[in-house]
């Protein structure tokens, strides 16, 4: 069941001299299994928006329905909501606290009041999913892990709650190219194995271009554009919003202007397509 957001408004510090409207009439419907990217300049409302989805910011003006939970209800079961919508913040490794990695990952399931056996199973599964060895890493202190391992342990902590909708705020921030690749591969794996709906906020347009199905562009608190990835980067001049065009999209746009349509979004795909296109002509 989809996530439906209608006419969402939000103002920080309302009725004070510091009032700031962060969201203005935001409308968005996210379907099951979609991988949607949220982009926009810093301060455009992306974080404010996603934090409404799991109730970290309480709904004050608008309508939000997540699966069958209506956030306008008098008594919203936030625990249920947060087990449904898992959220991985920026630099999630900074929230690790337990004595062992396993204990930290168990935090979520424990808060869900699951029986001990179920908790243990979930911890093992989460560790496996993120590619951390249970015997080697499980009993270590989270503070003894490398940066990349800590990030994966933090993500495992959210995955252990088995959310149907996964929100990731800049999951590759601060990582080197190899680290970024690992996280993106992880996300592909989660998608394939759990068919989760994934919402990813990112500043890396190349990453967005290569991975997501659909993109919502936030500009000054409102969604200016909402369309499939390919269409967005071909039709919309995102430079106007202070965002950079993905490298491959630039090339494809130029080629499309002379009538050559290239499919594919990664370098390899584009390369193959160009070769094919060339093959069809005599040079």
């Amino acid at each position, binding site marked *: 069941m989809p996530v439906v957001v209608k006419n969402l408004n939000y103002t920080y510090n309302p009725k004070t001299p510091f009032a700031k409207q962060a969201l203005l009439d935001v409308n968005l419907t996210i379907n099951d299994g979609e991988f949607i990217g949220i982009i926009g300049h810093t301060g455009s409302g992306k974080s404010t928006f996603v934090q409404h989805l799991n109730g970290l910011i309480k709904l004050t003006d608008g309508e939000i329905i997540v699966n069958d939970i209506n956030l306008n209800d008098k008594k919203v079961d936030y625990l249920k909501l947060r087990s449904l919508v898992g959220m991985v913040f920026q630099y999630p490794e*900074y929230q690790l*606290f337990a004595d062992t990695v396993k204990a930290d990952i168990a935090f979520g399931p424990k*808060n869900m009041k699951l029986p001990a056996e179920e908790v243990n199973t979930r911890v093992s599964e989460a560790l496996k999913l993120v590619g951390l060895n249970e015997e080697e890493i499980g009993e270590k202190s989270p503070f003894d892990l490398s940066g990349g391992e800590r990030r994966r342990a933090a993500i495992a902590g959210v995955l252990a709650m088995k959310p149907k909708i996964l929100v990731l705020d800049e999951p590759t921030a601060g990582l080197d190219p190899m680290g970024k690749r690992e996280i993106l591969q992880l996300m592909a794996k989660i998608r394939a194995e759990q068919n989760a709906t994934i919402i990813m906020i990112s500043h890396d347009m190349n990453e967005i271009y290569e991975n997501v199905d659909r993109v919502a562009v936030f500009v000054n608190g409102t969604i200016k554009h909402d369309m499939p990835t390919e269409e967005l980067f071909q039709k919309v001049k995102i430079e106007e919003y202070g965002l950079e065009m993905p490298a491959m999209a630039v090339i494809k746009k130029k080629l499309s202007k002379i009538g050559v349509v290239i499919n594919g979004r990664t370098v390899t795909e584009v390369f193959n397509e160009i070769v094919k296109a060339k093959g069809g002509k005599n040079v």
Partner: protein
Amino acid sequence: MFRDVTLGQYYPADSFVHRMDPRIKILLNILYLVGIFFIKSYFGFVIVLLFLCVAILFSKVPVGSVIRSVKGILVLVAITGILNVFFYTGETVLWSWWIIVITKEALIFSGQMILRLIFLVVGASLLTLTTTPVDLTHAIESLLKPLTLIKFPVHELALIMSLALSFIPTLIEETDRIVRAQKARGAAFDTGGLVSRAKAFIPILIPLLVSSFRRADELALAMNARCYEGSTNRTKMRKLTLSWRDLVGTLVTAVFFTAIFVLYSWITSAAPLIPALPYSWLYI
């Protein structure tokens, strides 16, 4: 500009008091605090009230802000007042029930205590409302300088204060972030008994502590990279200088408090005669 200042107490304005040297303001404040405890009669309170009005007028701080600063300790003041009413031993009993005895003397004493505390807070608030935390730190460092002769770490103290000031907003933000991240994992901070609520803070405190150590480490590195070597041969960009305003401010304060001290000694020496005077209760 409001939000720029940590602690939120500073009220930016360009007033006579704002422009006074922070060291003088601190010293006068101390004089003021001492003076309050020399008030021996309600006349004294009136004098202090007058002084405060003058100070507030010349600081261009809205009365509302001043009153708001008292709001915080109002509870404490009320409790002190009530406790004093019950436990001060007086003679003229007005009302009693079981072991609770309320005497006239207790009421008067309590009333005075409450007034003193309120004046105390207002006076101290005026200091923080008109002086930026940075200036306060500079002033304290300057005033304590003589202590370096007895090897008291004045510079280090001032540095710690200034670093703490810079990092408070960062730490507050980080705490907020950690709280949200743990809430997203189902943590709840407002349910359960005392013990479980206390335990609920571990997932907040530990990351915060670890992060603070890391910050301190990185900061020390950055400071070293910028040639920090302690207080040896250090110069300062900001020079605190006295001006005519400080002289005027000191004189005005002196006048007011001379009045209080004079009043105090009059009343003390005339103490045996007081009960015979009309409205003798004014003289306490």
